[in-house]
């Protein structure tokens, strides 16, 4: 009579055999003392292995985050991957907010601004607003240059060291192409030259875009999670000139997203620009 192979006894004790196979083995065991002894030895070996491995259990108590905590992590990662999609959703909500949230006056400004002058005609954005008198020319010496190309000598502050505190990440510069390729939301006014783009990694990225108006003034647009934006250092927001003198800032929120624009132009003009923002 053939004895039961060792591996089969392991499988039998591990309850890895079919019922038919198990019955076959049991009937053999009933009449074979040698196989019973082998079975007992393997059962002992099995128990010993389990006991030895049990000593390797971590002794410190386990930290087990709640399932909702893991879900949140999963959502953050999914959100990162779905940046493009989120940008589209944001743009849609922005358009909704603008059409609902601003006065007819702002809206008219927006229409005027959208009907921007053709290249070659000087039309500083300041003239759109009537509330604030035009500022002296020396504050914006390039205003008369009627060009859509970036004006040489314009001040562009980099944000490298500006923000600090809890959100104190490092800003890095990106080209428009690379930022878009990376799926970032790049908030910008259509038709204005982009001077630079800076990105800060936070829970989701903050993106700051500097653009030049036909007047030569620089307008900075920052988009990011509201929780991070409110922590931004003032100098990161209003660095369009010495201490951001004369700068207007407008901002809007949509859920946890926040969009902020700043420039040394009247607030009404800025709002008009906000209406022309593109996030894609």
């Amino acid at each position, binding site marked *: 009579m053939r004895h039961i192979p*060792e*591996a*089969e006894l*392991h*499988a039998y004790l*591990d309850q*890895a055999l079919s019922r038919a196979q198990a019955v076959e083995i049991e009937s053999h065991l009933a009449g074979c003392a040698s196989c019973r002894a082998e079975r007992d030895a*393997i059962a002992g*070996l*099995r128990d*010993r*292995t*389990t006991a*030895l*491995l049990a*000593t*390797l*259990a*971590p002794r*410190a108590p*386990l*930290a*087990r*985050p709640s*399932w909702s905590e*893991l*879900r949140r*992590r*999963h959502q953050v*990662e*999914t959100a990162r991957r779905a940046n493009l999609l989120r940008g589209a959703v944001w743009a849609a909500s922005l358009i909704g907010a603008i059409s609902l949230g601003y006065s007819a006056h702002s809206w008219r400004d927006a229409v005027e601004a959208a009907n921007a002058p053709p290249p070659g005609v000087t039309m500083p954005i300041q003239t759109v607003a009537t509330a604030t008198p035009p500022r002296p020319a020396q504050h914006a010496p390039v205003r008369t240059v009627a060009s859509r190309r970036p004006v040489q000598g314009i001040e562009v502050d980099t944000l490298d060291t500006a923000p600090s505190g809890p959100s104190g990440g490092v800003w890095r510069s990106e080209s428009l192409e690379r930022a878009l390729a990376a799926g970032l939301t790049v908030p910008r006014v259509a038709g204005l030259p982009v001077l630079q783009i800076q990105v800060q990694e936070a829970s989701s990225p903050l993106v700051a875009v500097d653009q030049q108006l036909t007047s030569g003034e620089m307008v900075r647009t920052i988009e990011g999670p509201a929780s991070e934006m409110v922590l931004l250092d003032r100098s990161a927001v209003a660095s369009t000139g010495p201490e951001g003198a004369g700068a207007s800032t407008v901002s809007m929120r949509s859920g946890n997203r926040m969009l902020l624009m700043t420039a040394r132009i009247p607030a009404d003009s800025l709002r008009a620009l906000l209406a022309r923002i593109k996030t894609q």
Partner: protein
Amino acid sequence: MADELEALYHSTYTSVVRFLYRRVWDLDRAQDLAQEVFVRAMAHRPEKPRAWVFAVAANLARDEARAAMRRKKHLTLLANDPIVMPASEPDAQEMVEQDERVASVHRALDELTPRDREVLLLWDAGLSYPEIAAQTDLAVGAVGTTLARARKRLVAVHERLTAGHMDDAAHS
């Protein structure tokens, strides 16, 4: 689907950590990796979540071991670590003995071939023969053979190590 994963998380998180711990020997790291496994599971929505979770855990452990090897930090045996023993600790002697026991099992496990070790640890983590077979590319029939070899070797090496240790103790 989500409920199934959540139930799996509650029932197997400890097993997954233990499985990973025996591969990476760092509890914090093992927990990080275990959580990573479940986060990935949420995105991946595997058909057979339990087998999938252990397969991914094994892959992460393998990557981790390779990285550790590169850092030349791998296989730092517990026995070689200085044991900090507070003088006032009443259980100090017991702790030393516990550490030595762990070190010898750890070393015995390291002497198995990678495949034997993986099969043994997967079995110990609660996977069935078919699940182990699917994960290791073994035939289901070969799982028993592999487990038989791994168990014998683990116990034999461990006995050799602890016998040697007792001899050392007698000579000192």
